[in-house]
């Protein structure tokens, strides 16, 4: 499309020197978006909204937070009790982290279901995984800052994971700590990096959107845009749809912030950190539970590699494997709507991640869901097995063997047909 002509003199003057208005116009009005996007396509913009919310609330928290082991806990309590609206800003930030993961996990499940990782969207998918990794690092370091018992012991357990690596393990952990245990130098560097990482994420989001705009959005049919009939401009059609979704999401978010602000947290983090007493049950925040379950489920040795190292490798592998699924998935059809067999495996995978999350929250020797004799560790091991089998076995085999349903000729045709059937 041709560049727009600006009538307003001021707009034209600016745009001639820095074509920022043309760029915005190009990516909002001219950007062709598939006309059949469902509400599952709301979570990208929601994630962007939460990122901005986290950065803004975080900046205000820093104005009152003190990154020192002797004052961090008290300064957070002061924010809660004495700072005007401090409780609100902190609860927004605390629950915002959970909201970020809810939205991003749904965004990823959407991508998995509709094959949004397949050619030509591999780079888009990769940048997304990098964003997830950066989010995990940010969330982990942020959780340490209030310097409660879970902050301290969570930091201890997670940094100790790196001691599993042979030879470099111990010096690496000392380097991460800046001492011989998690202490003030650790708190200071986590604070510094926790402030930095959101801007790294912001940079990655710019690349993510850039990549998106060059390959265009996928859609529920998985069929690419072919003619102008298949698409509508992003603005106003999807800006209004995103805004409606934002309203619904804000009701959900505010329900937590105002009515159950500590529901997703752990009460032990309201006890000041004590390096001499370990809480009886250390659990990470809910969004790390499936990965924690994978880590713990490896309690055996293979080829002389100790269980601890294997667990750490399995946990990292559970995310790294996402990088290669564009090639593990052999199906020519993107959307699971037209994949009658794979569709069931997809839902099995979703259930599997929930089971992993449950196992991560329980002690290894507990009974699974109260079923006598079925230990949590065993269910964790079976779920870990399926987690990897889904990518390494199901994706390549089902893609080859499945008989897919006929694809619509175009997005437009599928929309008209569905309209006629309704």
């Amino acid at each position, binding site marked *: 499309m041709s560049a727009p002509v600006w009538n307003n003199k001021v707009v034209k003057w600016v745009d001639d020197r820095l074509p920022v208005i043309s760029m915005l116009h190009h990516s909002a009005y001219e950007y062709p978006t598939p006309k059949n996007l469902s509400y599952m396509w709301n979570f990208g913009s929601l994630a962007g909204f939460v990122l901005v919310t986290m950065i803004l609330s975080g900046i205000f928290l820093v104005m009152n937070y003190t990154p020192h082991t002797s004052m961090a806990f008290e300064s957070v309590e002061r924010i809660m009790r004495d700072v005007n609206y401090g409780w609100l800003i902190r609860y927004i930030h605390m629950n915002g982290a959970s909201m970020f993961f809810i939205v991003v996990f749904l965004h990823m499940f959407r991508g998995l279901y509709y094959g949004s990782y397949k050619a030509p969207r591999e780079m888009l998918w990769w940048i997304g995984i990098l964003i997830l990794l950066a989010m995990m690092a940010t969330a982990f370091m942020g959780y340490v800052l209030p310097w409660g018992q879970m902050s301290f*012991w969570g930091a*201890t*357990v997670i*940094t*100790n*994971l790196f*001691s599993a690596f042979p030879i470099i393990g111990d010096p690496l952990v*000392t*380097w*991460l*700590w*800046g*001492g*011989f*245990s*998690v*202490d003030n*130098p650790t708190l200071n*560097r986590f604070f510094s990096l926790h402030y930095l990482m959101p801007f790294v994420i912001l940079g990655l989001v710019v690349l993510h959107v850039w990549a998106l705009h060059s390959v265009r959005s996928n859609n529920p049919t998985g069929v690419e845009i072919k003619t102008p009939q298949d698409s509508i401009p992003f603005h106003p059609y999807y800006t209004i749809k995103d805004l409606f979704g934002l309203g619904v999401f804000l009701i959900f978010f505010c329900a937590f912030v105002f009515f159950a602000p500590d529901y997703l947290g752990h009460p032990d983090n309201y006890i000041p950190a004590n*390096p*001499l*007493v*370990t809480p*009886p*049950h*250390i659990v990470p925040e809910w969004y790390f539970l499936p990965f924690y379950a994978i880590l*713990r489920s490896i*309690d055996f040795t293979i080829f002389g590699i*100790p*269980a*601890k190292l294997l667990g750490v490798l399995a946990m990292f592998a559970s995310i790294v494997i996402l990088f290669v699924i564009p090639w593990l998935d052999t199906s020519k059809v993107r959307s699971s709507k037209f994949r009658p067999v794979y569709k069931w495996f997809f839902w099995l995978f979703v259930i599997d991640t929930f089971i992993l999350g449950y196992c991560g929250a329980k002690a*290894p*020797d507990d009974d699974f869901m109260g079923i006598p004799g079925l230990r949590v560790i065993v269910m964790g091991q079976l779920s870990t097995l399926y987690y990897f089998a889904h990518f390494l076995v199901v994706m390549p085999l089902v893609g080859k063997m499945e008989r897919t349903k006929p694809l619509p000729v175009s997005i437009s045709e599928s929309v008209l047909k569905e309209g006629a059937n309704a």
Partner: protein
Amino acid sequence: MSQTVHSSGTEKPDENRRDFLTLATTAVGAVGVGCALLPFVDSMNPSKDVLALASVEVNLSNIAVGQAVKVMWRGKPVFIRHRTDREINEANEVALNELVDPQADDARVEKKEWLIVVGVCTHLGCIPMGTATGEARGDYDGWYCPCHGSHYDTSGRIRRGPAPKNLEVPTYTFLTDTSVRIG
């Protein structure tokens, strides 16, 4: 200018020479960047004040037989246990080939009655229970880690559970019969 005329003239430009210069410049540049990064990376290692606090002296005279205490050393707890005869015997009776991380009790203590170990589970760094009276000591009368269920014996050796190694023995010296310097 004359060079441009020169290379576009009869002779071919010396491409090997140019490639070599580009590569050499890049390599020197990369080494330079690496050297510049080093101070920043090293600044994250333990600082001098942290290292200076790396030893602690403990008075043992008021630890009764059968009792154990925790002292802080390098920001982590050290367990000092005044072992009973029964505990010393238990530590010596076990066959070495039954151990996950085989080590004789003699190699882990300087004086039989005093066991001094770093109180950090070798699995993922939790503090095992069993130092204070009344705490669970696990199935081998030593320590029990509540995080992932590791059992340690009366010599601080790993006997069962996910921990891969025995509790670490710090360097220490007895200054007198009743005082010890750790670190």
